[in-house]
């Protein structure tokens, strides 16, 4: 896991690459790669690549980057891990390719030389890379299928720039900071900025599962090579393999965990009291991984209360023989870390605080790589949305057929009336939005609804942002397939393509990388997703129970039957307090998210000026 950057002066009139600018971009990402740094400029000075290294595979200098092919034609800067690189290496060697290093980076160079851009479909892992082909004079950018690793680009019409962080592009000093209303509105609507937007007009996120080629006249249209909805549709239409659904799940989990353990440093696990991370630990243990370290986050406020995950996590760690590190965080530490946290946060997000602290704990324990249970809820229907969104659509669809009725009701339930009825601020929009998949999903996941934005943002920004973002069309686009999806797969596609990608995975990246810790996510893997039973089968079974049974011995009953606690950490209360919102009894997550979103925007991005 690393930080990558690059500048390519593609138009003849563009000035050559400024090495100092590239160095500034690279240096902004020092926490992503504390083990080494590399800069390379082509002989003509028109292409430059930068790299910050966190050494995980092939710790020798042989794995240093940017890396060149033996003939000098190809140069790559790569962030991520290729879990099937040994299989690919063996295949390439059998075809006569000669390797100089043990790194997965070199596999990418050979694979591109043989297969060209279609090589991305062969890769199992998390990745973002920039590859310069001096013979064809093209720069290729690629990002993994599900969007685990970020990749941002900026093009001024003469020169193309890319980096692992949007803030690194700004740090170079040549990229405009004009705000993008689409990203700003997107953040306030959803709590994170939906790709391909950022909060800066000049900076784009390369969509997950896409490649981008830059030639002599600049970047072309990003080309998708993977799409979640299509993958789920394919999974539902192929003949079921032999064996029960439970055994297919178990095989898929074991296979994914095995692949995610590929490393030349020890691999730890982030452990909560939930099923997902417990299953990862149990599976690792069952594979005979020695000396596993499990890191759990505890909160002083919860000690001795039912919400405290620490005792149960300790029991799970002991059950599988792991060294257990319990790291307790209190409010004072949160407040101390807040400035650094905001600086590391690449794009505004209402989440990521827990990941910041658990990654910090891992770093303190000398851990470089840890598995996380992120993504299991999207695969196995662990969110309430899997129940609520289809129910909403089926009940309210007839209302959506009456033009204007929902909007009329929403306007009728004006702010004052809704407040008098003690309705949730989003409740007036139920009839207007609840009858379509995109609308029901927006209701479920939104921080603010579109009609509320004019109260917190400049009306011009709201109007322009909503027009550019087109939130409902954008959400609906995540469901586009040739034959349609079942209810379970629809919600899985929405959660995986939107919430998980734009929020959870992005948060994991910046919060983990801020501490130089690589977070691996075995439940976020295109090969794993394809190996699972079809959506209707998963919907008809207790899939979470099935994964709890994967380890030997299975997870204890207390974990299997524990009510999902989600965000019930004091972080919600701290966020609420930090944002200056009124004191509440208990934690109202929705209110906390709203207040925090506003405070965060004010503190870190208003302008937006942070970099």
């Amino acid at each position, binding site marked *: 896991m690393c930080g990558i950057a690059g500048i390519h002066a593609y138009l003849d*009139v563009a000035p050559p690459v400024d090495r100092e600018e590239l160095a500034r971009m690279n240096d902004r990402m020092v926490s992503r790669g504390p083990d080494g740094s590399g800069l390379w400029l082509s002989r003509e000075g028109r292409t430059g690549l930068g790299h910050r290294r966190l050494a995980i595979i092939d710790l020798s200098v042989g794995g240093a980057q940017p890396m060149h092919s033996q003939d000098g034609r190809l140069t790559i800067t790569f962030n991520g891990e290729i879990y099937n690189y040994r299989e690919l290496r063996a295949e390439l060697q059998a075809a006569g390719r000669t390797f100089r290093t043990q790194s997965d980076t070199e596999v990418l160079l050979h694979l591109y030389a043989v297969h060209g851009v279609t090589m991305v479909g062969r890769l199992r892992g998390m990745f973002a890379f920039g590859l310069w082909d001096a013979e064809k004079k093209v720069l290729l950018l690629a990002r993994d299928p599900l969007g685990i690793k970020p990749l941002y680009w900026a093009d001024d019409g003469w020169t193309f720039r890319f980096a692992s962080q949007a803030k690194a592009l700004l740090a170079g000093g040549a990229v405009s900071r*004009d705000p993008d209303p689409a990203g700003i509105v997107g953040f306030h609507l959803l709590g994170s900025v939906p790709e391909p937007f950022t909060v800066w007009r000049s900076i784009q996120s390369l969509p997950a599962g896409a490649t981008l080629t830059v030639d*002599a*006249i*600049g970047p072309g249209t990003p080309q998708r090579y993977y799409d979640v909805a299509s993958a789920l549709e394919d999974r539902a239409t192929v003949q079921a393999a032999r064996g029960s659904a439970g055994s297919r799940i178990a095989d898929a989990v074991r296979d994914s965990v095995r692949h995610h353990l590929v490393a030349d440093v020890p691999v730890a696990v982030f452990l909560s009291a939930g099923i997902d991370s417990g299953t990862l630990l149990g599976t690792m243990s069952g594979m005979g991984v020695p000396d596993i370290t499990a890191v759990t986050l505890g909160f002083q406020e919860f000690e001795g209360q039912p919400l405290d995950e620490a005792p149960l996590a300790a029991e799970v760690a002991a059950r599988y023989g792991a060294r257990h590190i319990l790291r307790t965080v209190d409010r004072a530490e949160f407040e101390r870390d807040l400035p650094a946290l905001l600086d590391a946060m690449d794009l505004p997000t209402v989440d990521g605080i827990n990941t910041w602290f658990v990654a910090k704990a891992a770093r303190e324990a000398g851990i470089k790589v840890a598995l996380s249970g992120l993504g299991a809820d999207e695969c196995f229907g662990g969110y309430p949305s899997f129940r609520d969104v289809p129910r909403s659509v089926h009940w309210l669809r007839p209302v959506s057929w009456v033009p204007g009725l929902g909007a009329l009701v929403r306007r009728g339930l004006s702010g004052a009336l809704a407040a008098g009825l003690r309705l949730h601020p989003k409740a007036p929009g139920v009839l207007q939005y609840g009858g379509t998949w995109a609308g029901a999903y927006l209701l479920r996941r939104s921080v603010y609804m579109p009609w509320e934005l004019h109260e917190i943002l400049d009306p011009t920004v709201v109007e322009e942002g909503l027009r550019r973002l087109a939130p409902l069309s954008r959400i609906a686009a995540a469901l586009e397939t040739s034959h349609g999806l079942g209810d379970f797969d629809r919600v899985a596609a929405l959660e995986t393509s939107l919430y998980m990608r734009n929020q959870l995975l992005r948060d994991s990246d910046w919060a983990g990388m801020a501490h130089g810790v690589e977070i691996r996510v075995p439940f976020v893997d295109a090969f794993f997703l394809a190996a699972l039973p079809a959506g209707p089968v998963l919907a008809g079974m207790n899939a979470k129970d099935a994964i709890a049974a994967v380890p030997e011995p299975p997870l204890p009953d207390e974990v299997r039957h524990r009510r999902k606690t989600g965000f019930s950490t004091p972080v919600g209360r701290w966020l609420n307090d930090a944002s200056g919102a009124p004191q509440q009894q208990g934690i109202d997550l929705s209110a906390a998210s709203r207040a925090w979103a506003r405070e965060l925007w004010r503190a870190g991005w208003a302008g937006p000026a942070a970099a």
Partner: protein
Amino acid sequence: MGSRILALVGDCYGARGGIARYNQDLFEGLADGRTEILILPRHGDASGRELPAGVRQKTAIFGRLRYSLTAIVAAWRFRPIDTVFCGHVFMAPLGFVLARLFRARYWVQAHGTDVWKDRRGLVRRLIEAADLVTTVSRETRRILLAWVDLPPERVRVLPDTVQDVFRPGPPSPVLVNRLNLGKGPILLTVGRLASSERYKGHEAVFSVLAGLRVSFPTLIHVVAGDGDDRSRLEAVAEEVAPGAVRFLGYVPDADLPDLYRLADLYVMPSTEEGFGIVYLEAAACGLRVVGGKGGGTADAIPDERVGVIVDPADRSALAVAIDRQLRRGRADPTAVEPYRRAHFAACARALYARLAAQPRRTTAGP
């Protein structure tokens, strides 16, 4: 089989000005022998000119309605059309309709102020419908993307190119004798003297001439160009810098290289140039240049080998810039080489190849 481009333009062969020049350069760049280009201009007469192979220009029609009707008939006869090129946003409604009617790709060219100021919703939607938008400068692209919702990769920059006639050389003795400008140094400005284009900054230069003459007593400012603002500018010059400004009126393109070679410094602190091809032409002849902050000027004055950019509102900075540039001697013409026609033509062809490789669009969606 070759490709067919229907070009709706304001000015092209036989017309004056930077946009006419740009369009000619573009079509000459695209004319590879296999591409047919039919130009429908609003100004300019191409009769008697030899056009590149495959390029034809119809008689200019200024009237909007007649132009539109003639364009529809011409397009019908020109079928099958691969691309409708719209050389000015003003013609975007017609360009869009023709492109959809004839199932052609739709290419919009933006020059500068045409897309900086007119931000009506209809204009925005017509630009957003384009398969390719080209701008002459990075700044025009940036401004366009600030209010038009287009994927950034669809908006490409194709900078102006410098004609080969603009090269360094000795001053023409004939011109020296005819103009009789004295010992100099000679500051030169070339541009339309239009009341709608006061941003070119003539008055700013006039206002610092008296101060400059303290150091350079025989300094003279030569103004080439004509327009409805000329008499007013002459009066201003006479008032603030008596005897220091010489107005030449319109100078034909063919005479410009000699004019540049005669001068010591090109000064035009313009704030709204779409690109500012004159800066490059001057630099290609070895003149250092002083340009104005704003618009696309930064693209035409690539670095200090050519000159500097100043804010004309800051008169002392303008005076200092002129003083310093005069003392630095000649520009390095190699800095202009990437703007030469071979680069421009290669870029234009690559852009068109990329556009032609796209599937045709029949709906207005992105």
